[in-house]
């Protein structure tokens, strides 16, 4: 799985945050515009781009972009 591409997809769920501001280490909950709608969008993105269904529990326990990346990576063989 391509890390850069994942960060790009992750960033696309925000309106005012650019991919250049994000790394796998970013604590996404600290980003000002983070919201429950963006959380849902990240889940929808994982389904659309990677065919991976994240549970609400998995999403809630994730803090860094790497946490989400690792779950998707573990569940996909792309």
């Amino acid at each position: 799985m391509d890390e850069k591409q994942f960060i790009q997809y992750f960033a696309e769920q925000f309106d005012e945050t650019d991919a250049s501001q994000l790394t796998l280490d970013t604590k996404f909950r600290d980003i000002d515009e983070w919201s429950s709608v963006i959380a849902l969008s990240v889940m929808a993105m994982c389904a659309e781009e990677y065919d991976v269904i994240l549970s609400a529990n998995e999403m809630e326990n994730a803090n860094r972009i790497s946490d989400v990346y690792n779950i998707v990576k573990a569940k996909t063989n792309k």
Partner: protein
Amino acid sequence: MYNPYSLDGKTILITGAASGIGKATSIECSKVGAKVVAVDLNAEGLNALMPQLEGEGHISFAGNLCAEGFLKELSEQVPPLDGVFLCAGVSDTTPVKFITEEKIDRVMSVNLVAPIMMLKQLLIMKKINKGGSLVWMSSYGAEKVEPGLGIYAASKSAVNGIMRAYAKELIARKIRSNSIMPMMIRTELLSTLNNISDKNWEKQEAMYPLGFGSPLDVAYAAIYLFSDASRWITGTQIKMDGGSNL
């Protein structure tokens, strides 16, 4: 015994009868005297339901309500009906930016199109008795939308809209049409909602002074609407929210 809510002598068709609200309503309707025609996609679930029905004369049909062939076959084979509970339904948690026509179709075809097409066949075959009652499963979600539930809300709002068309067009035959709009009811459907975490469920339930609803709560509302006790009620939406919107 005096019971204005009795369904003695009435035959009620219930879709989505294999699970959740449809299942509970099937069992409760049989307990107050109805003959149940149970319909669902899930044949195993129907087989598990049938022995739980009280009394005699219940039948079941397994098939996909979105398939025209099944609707025709069903309408030909069912006995004349005094009530129809349009309960089969599916949910979806797609945020608006990710909506696709495919996703809209999946939800609309089960929640909206299938009930309309089934009733059309039943009416053509004259299978709905004079004085009959149609009960539609809408949802409180038609009015109070949570993130991700847009397509679902649209389908349930549409149900409320068309429900009134049946009330208007069928009133000459004293056939009534109403919908039920519950908030959170504990059923299998909730496990398909991947937008709510365990912690969040607790928070959600705390917002209901009377707790989450049970399938029985909806079953009792449906029984009222099928019984002669509600003979003056048509074109109405019954909201059930456990006091959470007070």
